[in-house]
């Protein structure tokens, strides 16, 4: 078998992306939702790296993936801080309980 090609990487990235999204949609715990976000971002990263290797995207792909990692970190930090603040006010991080704003 000729080893691992571009499509396999895309499939892995796709799985990561879908699981990330499903996790975000189903998790009731705020932290679980944030994990889902991470999964999505990493799925995209895998894509970038794969494309930089197999298509003429070249170094751009890898540079982007580096930036994505940094940004994921920043986002996670802010998200966790907000989740903490949410916990202080609602004494729970169950996302469904936060539905005072509606209509």
């Amino acid at each position, binding site marked *: 078998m000729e080893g691992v090609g571009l499509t396999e990487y895309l499939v892995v990235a796709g799985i990561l992306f879908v699981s990330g*999204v499903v996790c*975000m*949609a189903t998790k009731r715990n705020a932290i679980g*939702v944030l994990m889902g976000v991470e999964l999505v971002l990493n799925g995209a990263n895998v894509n970038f790296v794969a494309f930089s290797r197999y298509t003429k995207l070249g170094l751009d792909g890898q540079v982007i993936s580096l930036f994505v990692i940094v940004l994921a970190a920043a986002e996670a930090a802010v998200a966790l801080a907000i989740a903490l603040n949410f916990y202080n006010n609602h004494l729970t991080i169950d*996302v*469904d309980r*936060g*539905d005072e704003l*509606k209509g």
Partner: protein
Amino acid sequence: MDPQTYQSTGEMLRNLLTLAWLLPLAGFVLEVFAGYWSHRLSRAAAYSAVFCIAAGFVCSFAALMYWGHQTHWSALESHASPADHHDVLKYFSGTYYTLAEFGKLRIAIDYHIDSLTLVMFTMVTLIATMIHIFAIGYMSDELTEHYEDHQVHTAHGHFHRPGRFYMFFAYLSLFSFSMLGLVLAGNVFQVFVFWELVGVCSYFLIGFYFERKSASTAANKAFIMNRVGDFGFLIGLMILWTWFGTFQFNERVESDANGRDVVMPGLFDMLRDDHGNVTVLPANDHDSYARVFLADPGHSGALKHEGHKEGKTMPYFLLVVAGLGIFAGCVGKSAQFPLQTWLPDAMEGPTPVSALVHSATMVAAGVYLAGRFYPMFLPEVLLTIAYVGCITLFMAATIAVVATDIKRVLAYSTISQLGYMMLGIGVGGWTAGLFHLITHAFFKSLMFLCSGSVIHGCHHEQEMPKMGGLIRKMPITAYTMLVGVIAICGLAIPGISIFGIKIAFSGYHSKDAIIATAMTFSQLNGSHFLLFVVPLLGAGITAFYMFRLWFYTFIGQPRDHHVYDHAHESPVVMWAPLIVLSFFAAFVAFKGEAGSLFKLLLDTEPASVAHGLHDVGLAGDLNFPSHVGIEENHKAAGLYALLVAVMGTTLAYLFYGARVLNPAEVKRQFAGVHNFLVEKWQFDILYDAAFVRPVHVIAKWFVAFDRNVLDGFLHATARTAVSIATLDRRFDETVVDGLVNLVGNVTYDAGRSLRYVQTGRLRQYVMFIVLGVVGIWIVMRLFAA
């Protein structure tokens, strides 16, 4: 008459008549504000009104004299038929100012003076002067600060209000202005303008005691009835305007902007050629109905129809509709069948009003217009006029027999006499009809004033059964009334004629002329014999109810002592006009056809109009009587009429005058005559009311017919109108408004429902991101594929 003098006489006449016309308007403006410059109790307003109308009379009489002098009284020389003096141009017309101009179309306020106008002016101003003087006395009880109105019952007893003496005279002056304007009008549009102005004056005058519900309803009814007539009038106008393009009666030479004199063809010149005949192209293949030939308006007068086929044609039936439309206006104004129910109710107004407006002048306007517009009427229209006149005169006469209120009797008699005039015009007797109009104006206003002085004397008592034997208390009124009654019945002493003049009052001559014309007409076209029999019969009934009225009120024992004791002769300011009017009522038609009045009217009879239509009518060939034909039958017709009148008088004398016979019991004996009147009825024998009841039944039937069929129709239309209106309002509120609110609510509900989409739950939002993307992607695929 050479053009130079024609010009100067035209100027003179115009100034005189315009002065006569505008004086009452100035009076009106003065009197409306009388409340401010003069005290409410002063008679200043009355004096100003009388002065204006009297000055008006002097001017119009002077104009008449001047006109006669200028035309060397040619009109009065006896001549065989009116046709041959056509060469003398008999009318003066011109324009005051143009109302509006649209390209070639032009509407203006202009004047048209001929002998008919002069006669009408003199008659109207004379009668108006007399009535103004009479009214000073009659309306004197309005000169108080707290006038007590018996007929109005408010919460606290009778109604008190300050007197409105000056307002009454203001309305009278406004009325005289509009009436004179109507007579002076030079085009049919201007007639329409003053037509409605006269209508509004009658509205104000009928509704003078506006506190009384009956008075204001009567005023409304009168105005709306007139408006129904005007609706027909408007349709006539529309047709004329669209097909003829002008409203002017007669041709007029105008100098337009750059000096060239342009011929402005009138209505009559376009329809009838020089010899007065109308050319009708029979209905041929390419056109389903006959067409009437009109001279091309832009064409110069001289080159009319001789051989000229060029020029517009209009559908025949449309010209008939136009004629009927204009006649509808006359029916509305002169209270002919079927629009006559408003006149009896109009008696709500003070008696001088009934005398001036609802007997002599306004109601006569309808006949005047029919006369003025005569050349435009086609045979079918003339026939309708005749039949409407006939029905009206008979119906009104029968109802008058039964009426007990003195003013209602006179009202129905007016309607009946107007029927006569319409019949006269309808059967081709143009001069006879207008002759009767003039004479009738005098004696009818005289009788109304007499009834006014009776009512004034008996303190507003109008019911005849309460009167009786008043001759001893009010001799002058009684005798002047007698003159009027004799005039209207047309009594005369046959055979004896002192130096050629028959001893008879004016009514005899004018009614005689109409009956003669009707007789010759029915001889010429046999199928219309009714048009002679009914008026003859009517003459008899007229005599009966007029003398019944006279005997009822003045002769015999007083039926109600309370009324009798209070009765007193009216003051001099009231009986003086009675004397003057009775003189005119008697001798205005002095020497009948040979008299100057008849000759004056004859002078303006449209040239050979009648026989211009001989082979025109579609409904069989109607041939109209020529003057010569009428001359021969005159004597016979006179005798028949006199016979019938005498019969009526004696009958009335027997029942009410001598009271030698108890009317109820004796009436049973003369069942034969009355049977003749009520032949339809199965005659069930009830002892005393055997013959009175049928007459009452017919009368009541007519009254009932009036009240529920016509009035019913009126109320029905009002009710349906109101119900449509409420339906309309509900439709308006529900459907149209509902639609708007529905749209509003739908969007509002849509808005509210969208709130539920925003559930506030985070996970549902996130799910939407992916669902959104995939959803759009799928839609795009479907859409693009």
